[in-house]
């Protein structure tokens, strides 16, 4: 077998394995949840018997789900905006700034991506108590920004490395001050990466549970937190119905990312 044939064989084997894993661990649970949500039974069963949309109606009639969704959307949006600002600033500092500290800053910004959320949660919890912020929106948003910002940092850094910094120099010689060069050159060039990073940040916040458990309160109940509480008390198929809706929403976000990632999606004016 030639080296080339070997690599191709490995690639084919790898693809097959990936497909199996994908089906077993990602697709199967999704199918199970979706099927269970349409059951006509009073409890979670698999395989489901009958078909009914009663649990969607039940979810619809319970305002707690709406309140939690609205909280999650608000927190997600605020997290996305804050992450986009801080992520862009740190990406600019690292890719366009001096050379001495950049490696340190980059590792520091990326670190929360690697750290278990429980550690961050345990660290942030007493701090928020001290600041009398525990249970507030601010606490959850700050916590989520810590874990979401690295995503924006990564996508924006990639966008910044993807073009010639002479573009900004050119703008400066042509009469743009620092802010105008950012607004008229940097921003259009990183726009795609920034939007993708923002969506990722929103998605991370939207399904984050650990930090929400520690930092949110009754008034700032997020959707994953409410699902968690329901799971512990009453295991009704409402959970499956809500989970299916969350899945649908996530698919929409993924679609948006794919759309933005298309090479033709260059901003044209």
């Amino acid at each position, binding site marked *: 077998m030639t080296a080339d044939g070997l690599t191709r064989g490995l690639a084919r084997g790898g693809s097959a394995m990936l497909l199996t894993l994908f089906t077993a661990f990602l697709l199967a649970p999704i199918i199970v949840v979706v099927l269970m949500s349409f059951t006509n039974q009073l409890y979670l069963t698999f395989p489901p018997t009958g078909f009914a949309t009663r649990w969607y109606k039940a979810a619809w009639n319970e305002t707690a789900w709406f309140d939690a969704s609205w909280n999650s959307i608000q927190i997600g949006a605020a997290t996305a905006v804050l992450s986009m600002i801080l992520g862009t600033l740190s990406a600019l500092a690292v890719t366009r700034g001096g050379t001495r500290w950049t490696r340190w800053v980059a590792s520091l910004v990326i670190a929360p991506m690697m750290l278990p959320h429980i550690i961050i949660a345990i660290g942030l919890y007493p701090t928020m108590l001290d600041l009398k912020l525990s249970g507030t929106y601010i606490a959850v948003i700050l916590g989520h920004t810590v874990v979401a910002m690295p995503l924006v940092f990564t996508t924006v850094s990639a966008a910044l490395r993807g*073009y*010639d910094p*002479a*573009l900004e*120099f*050119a*703008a*400066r*010689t*042509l*009469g*743009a*001050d*620092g802010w*105008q*060069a950012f607004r*008229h*050159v940097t921003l*259009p*060039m990183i726009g795609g990466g920034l939007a993708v990073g923002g969506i990722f940040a929103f998605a991370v916040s939207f399904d984050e549970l650990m930090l929400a458990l520690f930092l949110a309160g009754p008034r700032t109940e997020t959707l994953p937190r409410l699902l968690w509480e329901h799971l512990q008390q009453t295991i009704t198929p409402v959970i499956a119905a809500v989970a299916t809706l969350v899945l649908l929403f996530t698919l929409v976000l993924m679609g948006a990312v794919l759309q933005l990632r298309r090479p033709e999606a*260059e*901003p*044209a*004016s």
Partner: protein
Amino acid sequence: MTRGASLEFDRVSKTYGAVTALQPTSMTVRPGEFFALLGPSGSGKSTLLGTIAGFVAPSGGCVLVDGADITAMPPHRRNIGMVFQNYALFPYLTVAQNIAFPLKMRRLPKSEIAARVDRALEMVRLGGFGPRMPAQLSGGQQQRVALARAAVYDPPLLLMDEPLGALDKNLREEMQEELRQFHRNVGATILYVTHDQQEAASMADRIAIMNHGKAEQVGAPHEVYERPGNSFVARFLGEANMFRLRRGWPDGPGRLRCETEESLNLLACGATSAALACVRPEDIVIGPAPTGRENCFAGRVTDLVQVAGSVRYRVAVAPGCTLIVRASAERRAVVLAKDDAVHVGWDAADMRFLSE
């Protein structure tokens, strides 16, 4: 027509940590001049240009435009035009929007912007290309857009960092002619960076030869070619036959007789000898019979190459001493071949003394 600005470097230097990108450099560019910075890669040309544009903060010294110190002025206030090697066109803006950019930054009224953009497009022969995107243009066309964008606000000083570096040879020559024409039309001072000595010689009024972050010599193209100040300049500007000298002594008025390392005897014009002497390949005559010049040697052809309009010979005249001789087409009446015994010669006036 714009009045060109004068430019002065006063002991401008730049170091990056332990790396010296630019040694203290002082020189003056005259108003309206086409001035070329010529040098090999890493010689500090872009760094020097950066100190004028404002991206490189000098470690010492100052830059003066029309007598005013601009060293600490932010780039956007300098009103200097710059053309970048890869054009640096904004890819998400149309050609017209690219050219309008500096005018928008200057808050000109819309109608005037439109009129000026049209005029600039005409000037670079791209009328009708306004609505196109830069990616839809050829390299030469993008180059012209970059030029129009840098010139549309009539800056008195234009900087160009290897503007033709990315073009193929034919287009390069065409654009060289176009740039010269452009310079005659606009009257701005142009500082032009290149590492192509042919390009510098054919376009510039004066050339500064850069090496190791230092301007080795400044002068008109024919001056630096005919009277190079040192061996680097002589070698960088075309071919040169270089002789290392052992000693020299006077031989008649204004004449020096020198002995080379290979113990050749040479006659040169001058008052004092130096470490090196050189003669250009085209100043040497070659033929089957003795040449009758003041310096005359017998030798053997070791190699010959036909180049456009001339023949380039290698002639061994002594052990360890091979001369390069360029004979133009008219002198080719006598056909010489490899291994022929020949005579080469040149006049004392064609010899130059050089420092290392």
